[in-house]
């Protein structure tokens, strides 16, 4: 069964889910890449999830340049969310690239944005945060997507995983 079908089937199976916290579902793709999603709700048209993680087992000891290339590729592919995303900070010491909505969504007193961390050992995590004016504590909020958008997102995140052989210097 193709990975795409595997995920679609899981969504169908989860139909009617309303998790008070989150329900984590994991899938295994090719090349030792796994995907984990913390769902909070799934219904016939769409789903809501708190966090999406992609773990590339083959990239555990990857270089910082590969992580940066990976972040750039993700920004190039994922262009259909509520806001465009772009790399914001790159911390070589922490081996982490921070990608966020650019610009974030704002209304009178609220700011919300996607935050994607691409970090060693080969992990991408996607979350959405909400900041309320005068409150320094940001809170993670659910991301909502139709099944089609969710499937496309998962597919793009998996396909963006770099293959060391092509990215590492000759």
């Amino acid at each position, binding site marked *: 069964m193709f990975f795409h079908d595997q995920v679609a089937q899981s969504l169908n199976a989860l139909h009617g889910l309303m998790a008070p916290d989150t329900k984590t579902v994991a899938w295994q793709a090719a090349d030792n890449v796994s995907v984990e999603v913390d769902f909070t709700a799934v219904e016939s048209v769409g789903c809501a999830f708190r966090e999406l993680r992609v773990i590339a087992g083959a990239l555990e000891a990857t270089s910082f340049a590969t992580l940066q290339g990976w972040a750039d590729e993700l920004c190039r592919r994922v262009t259909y969310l509520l806001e465009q995303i772009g790399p914001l*900070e790159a*911390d070589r*010491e922490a081996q982490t690239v*921070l990608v*966020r909505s650019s610009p*974030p969504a704002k209304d009178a007193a609220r700011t919300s944005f996607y935050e994607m961390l691409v970090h060693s050992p080969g992990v991408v995590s996607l979350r959405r945060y909400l*900041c309320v*004016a005068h409150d320094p*504590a940001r809170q993670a909020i659910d991301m909502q997507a139709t099944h089609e958008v969710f499937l496309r997102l998962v597919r793009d995140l998996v396909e963006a995983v770099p293959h060391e052989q092509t990215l590492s210097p000759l």
Partner: protein
Amino acid sequence: MARAIDCDLQRFKQIVRGKVRENLKKYITHGEMIGRKGRDLVSIPIPNIEIPHFRHGQRGSGGVAQGDGDIGTPIGRGQGDDDGAGEAGDQPGGHIREVEVSLEELAAMLAAELELPRIEPKGKDTISSKKDKYNSIRRTGPESLKHLKRTYKRALKRLIAADQYDPANPIIIPEREDRLYRSWTTKTQPETNAAIIYLMDVSGSMTDDQKEIVRIEAFWIDTWLQSQYDGIDVRYIIHDAMAKEVDEDTFYHTRESGGTRISSAYKVAREVIARDFPPADWNIYCFQFSDGDNWGEDNKACIEILAADLLPHCNLFCYGQVESPYGSGEYIRELHRIEDDWENLILSEIENKEAIYDSIKDFLGKGK
């Protein structure tokens, strides 16, 4: 008795300063003065109405004439002087007059406007410095310090006393015993010295707007502290995931794209204090600006360094959190937790340029 024009000038100066004082909040928040700062004076633009004056026409556009002339003959219309299609304006004239105000005076206005108390220097509030003053004369000294006038006077006296001076041929040649030299006395002067250390986050999330806020606030802090201390030594530290000491220009114009590790800046500040500013002799002020988006695991290290090595040595440690496009960062929440333990820790949230005014008051209102 003062001349009438002196009274008028004084009155004019009072009016101008009154105008500046009236609009000080606007000047504070919009940074108009920073680019105009000279050595000791600042030029401030104030609205003004231009006084009417004569303007000469173009050369060769007509001469002087006399006579009755014919009815309807236009007088003195030049080239391109047709009626325009525009309408009369309904706004007051927007001419600008620039007045020069000394930084000292500006600091006084700022203090009055923000009701800032005078700063009380810390415990051992003074350190001594030796200053030389050339105020005496000696018979010996280096040739570079020879006092020519006194030397020649002394030679003249000697010639007159010896009846060798000829007014018809007034040649005076000083001899060795005529030579007099300037000399100095060394005085010990008490000085109150202050060091300002600015720390700024220049990570990818700090935008140019946020840096502008920092620049404006730093200017006013500088102006106030300069008015309170004889010598101000300023140091600048920037950081993203790494920190370094830089010059003023680099401080305001650098933008990095690294992550945010505030502890790296604290480490450099600790080194600077240990190296250059013995806390017993210096009044140390730290002003830190960041969007507070510190990488989570770094907060603990920051608080440890702050509590152990910075707060015990600073008159004031001021943290200004400028709001980033992503909202307010969480670092200020960590600092709020230790705020009650340290009287010299001042926290301020700066949402936008309008908030600079209150932030300065938060920082300097304690009179520390």
